[in-house]
């Protein structure tokens, strides 16, 4: 039976209106925390393998104590065990420090044939932690996976979608794969699942539970990059804007405008 570790991150439920455009301040109040949507697809991919091949699925996350609810929710969806790396000494970690912490956490728990991650997070959006984790674990990895074609005892065949081509690739275990959202539609935790699986505990791991207890390797101290400042973007204001509130007028104007633009286009 293959052993799978799924990495998830709890993120704020941002929406596109998340910033006050005049002040540049984030509207964070009242925002819920959710599991990063790409990670939910990774979890679902693992759970489908569990359903069809009988895999064992453990979930790992790093975050504040509050992230326990996300790990717990992943367990309710079907993961066998949940591990939350939570310690104030982990906070402020950049890509490599985050990957290092996850590696230490996984190694403290056991060994895995396959690690599944989401292709990116909705907050950090770097797409870097998965590849960094794979490098630290010394395993090959694939990013941008949109389909699992086959799972065998010692390898997995997956489809990777790049800008201009799709590659079907076979990668031997142990391996790491980061998946795109479209790979799977995550199951909803139903009331029955909640009742049946509510007893699955989330294991909390602190720095003291890891093999490397040197705090210089974690969090802010273990990070190479530092955010010097955060600022709101300058908006373009050179444009004269012609604004209307009347739909009928707008429809006429847009027709005229698009016809004019189309007229300037070389070929149709």
């Amino acid at each position, binding site marked *: 039976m293959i052993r799978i570790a799924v990495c998830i991150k709890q993120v704020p439920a941002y929406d596109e*209106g998340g910033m006050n455009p005049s002040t540049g301040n984030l509207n964070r109040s009242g925002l819920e925390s959710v599991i990063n949507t790409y990670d939910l697809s990774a979890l679902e991919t693992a759970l489908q393998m569990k359903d069809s091949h009988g895999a064992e699925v453990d979930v790992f996350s790093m975050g504040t104590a509050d992230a326990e609810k996300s790990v717990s929710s992943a367990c309710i969806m079907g993961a066998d065990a949940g591990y939350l790396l939570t310690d104030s000494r982990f906070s402020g970690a950049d890509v490599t420090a985050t990957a290092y912490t996850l590696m230490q956490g996984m190694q403290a728990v056991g060994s895995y044939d396959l690690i599944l991650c989401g292709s990116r997070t909705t907050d950090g959006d770097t797409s870097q932690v998965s*590849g960094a*984790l794979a490098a630290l674990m010394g395993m090959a*990895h694939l990013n941008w996976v949109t389909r699992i074609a086959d799972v065998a005892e010692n390898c997995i065949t997956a489809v990777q979608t790049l800008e201009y081509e799709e590659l*079907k690739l076979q990668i031997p275990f142990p391996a790491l794969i980061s998946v795109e959202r479209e790979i799977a539609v995550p199951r909803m935790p139903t009331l029955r699942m909640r009742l049946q699986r509510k007893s699955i505990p989330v294991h909390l791991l602190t720095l003291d539970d890891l093999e490397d207890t040197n705090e210089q390797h974690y969090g802010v101290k273990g990070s190479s990059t530092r*955010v010097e400042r955060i600022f709101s973007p300058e908006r373009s204001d050179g*444009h004269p804007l012609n604004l209307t509130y009347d739909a009928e007028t707008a*429809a006429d104007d847009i*027709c005229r405008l698009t016809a004019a*633009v189309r007229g300037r286009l070389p070929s149709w």
Partner: protein
Amino acid sequence: MVILVYLEYRRGNIAGSSLQVLAKAYELSREGRHEVCAAVIGRNVQQAASQLTGLPITKAYLYEADDLFSADLYSEIFTRCIAKLSPSVVLIGGTKEGKSLSSRTAAMLKTGVTVDCTDVQLRGQDELVQIRPAYGGNVIAQIVTEKQRPQIAVLADSIMPPVKRSSMLSPETVLSREYASAASTVKLIERRELPEEKRISSYDVIVAAGQGVKRKEDLVMLEALARKLGGGLGATRGLVERGWMPHARQIGLSGHSIRVKLLIACGLSGTVQFMAGVRRADCVIAVNSDESAGIFQWADYGFCGDLQVLLPMLLEKMEDPA
């Protein structure tokens, strides 16, 4: 100081995105007479040498290797090159290959990596100031790699126009066959080119939909509008994450970059994340029910009101494509 640029080399061609990264490297180098070097990895890599003529590179390191990009093998080669040159700055293009490569390389070298940089500038001796959108693309962060070297920055797509060639320049090339027969454990089973029409970046006219599009019927109408205009329908990250549009249609930093004659932005606020993907739009029409939506600051023409009211009218009035 050395600035090392990774030049993506696929099927005998250096990627256009890499030539944009090189333009940035050249710009940085001129401020302090720094040296720009390049690494190229691939099959028959010697043929890349002729494509380097005229480029502002002092020395290019060519590594003969398997044509299939595999992050483990390529990052091993690339880190070897970095170890040899000890560059202060490493610049990589923000393609999927680039991002896979950068993550492993940074971890192996225990250094920092900043992706989707919309700008990078040199400060002081050799410090690279890295600018990128943060927190879901609503604000901009200025990031530095304090002590570790190299400083690895992955540049956003189309950060600069491609570098200009000069007939005066002829980079020295160094060929290595050390990895010619090295293989990744990743095996290629099948390769399929994606059909051209899937690429949202190939359109001159784009209708883009954001989270303000509340009903799927509206999306169907927007698609029809795009078709009438001979264009394509794109989406913001929010809408893609809602599962209403595929990632292939996503415009923005973590999606695709576009250069268009006409952009019709519907129900989207115009976050940094989205606008960073709009490299050029000669004419922007914005439709949003919120008068304070940032997109109106980019627009030439705006309709502040209900998209559901406007769309049927617009489709009825608009002529079919000739």
